[in-house]
């Protein structure tokens, strides 16, 4: 198994359910790791591969929704909720917070496996995007503060002259900055630079400093 092999994490306090799920997931050829509580899960080493989290809604240490909230802050895997007696408010909250599926027990194996597959696909895509963004951010981090200041003007389509006026410097200096930005960001064209800055979430309208 290489690192791109997906893994399914199962978090359920009931060992019977845990064991059954592990066996079921393993039977379709997926890697599986099971935990009895959210804390155990959070503590564990996770491989850098596409993943899916099958999460019980009620856990002894914290609720599944809480764990979902915590994971959303980082790059947590997509979540498939399972619950003994799911209520509508909880399921709505879970889905709103980005859960792939919300399955009341007992659930059908197809539903579960489908949801797990969907989650893995989603995670794989997410991981790709995240690594791309990370690359961009690496480039962006090379820019000097002045270049970062100039960048929003460039991607907003301002002429060098106007930018120089706004930033209180010469047109030539802005030209040099522009060249450096294009080079450092690895952008082949202005359009590409604009896309990059979109991904980085840089506003196109420069904030006027004065």
């Amino acid at each position: 198994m290489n690192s791109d092999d997906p893994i399914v994490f199962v978090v359920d306090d009931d060992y019977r359910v845990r064991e059954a799920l592990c066996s079921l997931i393993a039977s379709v050829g997926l890697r599986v790791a099971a935990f009895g509580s959210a804390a155990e899960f959070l503590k564990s080493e996770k491989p850098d591969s596409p993943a899916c989290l099958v999460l019980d809604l009620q856990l002894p240490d914290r609720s599944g929704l809480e764990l979902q909230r915590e994971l959303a802050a980082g790059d947590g895997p997509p979540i498939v909720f399972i619950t003994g007696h799911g209520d509508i408010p909880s399921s709505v909250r879970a889905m709103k917070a980005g859960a792939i599926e919300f399955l009341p027990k007992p659930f059908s194996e197809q539903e579960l496996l489908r949801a797990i597959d969907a989650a893995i696909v989603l995670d794989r895509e997410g991981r790709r995007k995240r690594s791309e963004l990370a690359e961009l951010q690496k480039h962006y981090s090379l820019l000097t503060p002045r270049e970062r200041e100039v960048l929003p003007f460039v991607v907003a389509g301002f002429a060098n002259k106007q930018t120089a006026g706004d930033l209180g410097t010469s047109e030539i200096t802005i030209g040099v900055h522009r060249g450096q930005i294009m080079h450092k960001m690895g952008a082949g064209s202005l359009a590409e630079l604009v896309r990059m800055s979109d991904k980085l979430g840089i506003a196109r309208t420069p904030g006027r400093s004065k």
Partner: protein
Amino acid sequence: MQRHTATEFGRLVKRVEEKTLHPARLNIGSRLILCFVFIILVMLGADAVVLWQFQVVHAQAERLNGIDQKLVTLLRVHASLLEFYAGLEAIAQTEDAGLLVKEAGALRTVALNDIQRAVSSFSLLPPDLQQDPNFLPTLHVIQSSLTSQLETIIKLATSGDWRAVQLRLSNQVRPLESMTSALVEKVDHDAAEQRAETVLNAGRVQRLVFVIVPTTAVFALLIAATLGLAITRSITQPLARLVEGSKALARGEFQHQVTIQGNDELAHLGQVFNDTARRLRDLYAVLQSSEDRLRLVIDTIPAYVWSTAPDGSVDFINRRWLESTGLSEENALGWNWSSAVHPDDLPRYVDELHRAFAAGESMESEARLWRADGKYRWFLIRNVPLRDELGKIVKWYGTSIDIEDRKQAEDALRQAQAYLSEAQRLSHTGSFSWTVPSGEIFWSAEMYRIFQCERTTKPSVELAFQRTHPQDALDLKQVVARASQDGEDFDFEHRLLMPDGSVKYVHVVAHGVRGESGELEFVGALMDVTAVKEAEGKIRLAEEALRQAQADLAHVNRVTTMGELTASLAHEVNQPLSAIAANGHACLRWLSADPPNLAKAREAAERIVRDGQDAGEIVRRVRALFRRAPGEKDVLDLNEVIGEVLRLLRGDAGRRGIAVETDLDKKLPSVVADRIQLQQVVLNLVLNGIEAMDQVADHPKTIFIRSAWESPNAAVVEVRDNGAGFENPERAFEAFFTTKQNGMGMGLAICRSIIEAHHGRLWVAPSQGPGATVCFTIPLKSSEMQ
């Protein structure tokens, strides 16, 4: 001479003064006697000197006188010799021998007599005058020669030789004459010498006397004056001190002491004075201390003490009175005491006082007296007269004693009696006493009311029997007969049949006591318990109804609780069912794999079996919980009951994120209780705790169940959560009081009634920190058996 005497006198005075002014060694009497003796001796000495001088002069005169006599004798001898010779010559002239013979004899006799006289007179002279060595021999020569010459002459005359006679006369007789004249001359000379000397002596003596007598007089006077002065001073000084001391004594300065010098009478007097003063001082001190003591006693006895003049004006008042009333002594004396008497009591008291004074008899009265703290207190006031020997009243003595407490006690007693009477009336309890030997009976007012008798009726045992219900009369008589014999207390309940036919239930309690003379007396109470009896019947009915209602309620609660549990139970069953389904699918997949993974499939199949058993167990437990109808008490292990409930709830708690902790005392003996009801209580309490923690987000949720000994006879079960807690712990037990959205508010009320039906208690314990603690006790089997 004058100067000599003066210095001598000065020395003497000084010496005398030293002797007398110095510590008087002698008594005054001896001193005075000595003084006078000394003066007399001085005067006697002076007199002796004078007498001696007179004696000297007298001896001189005597001597002069003797010499004169000697001279006279000598002159007489000389004269008789001359006459003898003259006679002889005359005869010789005549030459008559006869005559001569005749006359010669006579002449010779005369001459010899004279000589003899002279000799004898001479021998009478003082010896110092006889010392003339010539005188007597001369006289003896004359005497002897005269006779012989005369005889010779006679012979010559007879012979007629007149010539020889005459010759002889002139030759031989004449020398004799000259001899005597020489003697005379000598004696005369002596006499003249002696006279001169005598005169000289007399003059000396005269001068001496002139000096000695005044000197002696002055000397004696001076000595007398000096001694007198000295003695006077030695007497007057101590006397003055004594007088000073006496004056001091008179002033009351008993500590005054007189300085004492020497040991004479005045010193003794001073000593006696000092002793007297000392004794007086001691006496005064004793007197003072006894007076102080008396004063202290008077001032500290817990009473007011005073004395008044016969007219009633106060002349002494003790300090306690003054302190108590706050009056000053001046303000209290005279008639001002009246300001301390309560205005309402004053006229009556003054009236009583006047009457007592007029009659001259002791009086006793009660009045309120003012106290400095602004309150009046009741006092018992007594006045007693003091009479002199004639029976006249000279003083009145008075005391007053605080009787406020007694007064209050009297009031309280009066009030208590009133209350007692009222209480007897209200409680329908009469009291009585019964002196057995005399049959005398006392009834309180309520007794008459209960027996429905006139107050004028004389109570008796017969009357009591007469009113007793015929069915109870025999029993009562037996009880009374036994009690009157052995004197033991009795407690008896019986019925009275009233004249109007109504029946009263009464409860008699009596206590036997022996009087001083040994007679038996019963003191007791009789209570009309008719109302109580009636009420008891009603209560019994009400209690039964209540029990039924409680049972119904408990049933409702159980059903409700089951409803609440349904979700939990569903989940509890759901878990193994989900696992079974998943395992089944997994098993199928492992089997349908290529190649089939039989080991995995087998594991999955085994898990299906296991989980199936789990699900069955859960169903069994639920059935066990609600299997039997309530109302049957069994011997139960309390911890087992708790364990059953917890097994049922643990999953639910876990899902809600609640940790369940227990601390169960394994050594607890069994309890006797209704299993279902006890489970219901534990279930309710734990469920309440779990629900109370729903909203908790800031700390771990824990429910804690503890069982322990509460006392040797009871176990305690404590259910503690750290949830919202009770806002109002006591209201928690009110029926239909709930903080739950869909609760009935019956849970705790029913739990409490269940526990109380088991003779236990259920309460909300104050809890530290968040959450609530509910405890209940339940008697242990051992105590239940007793």
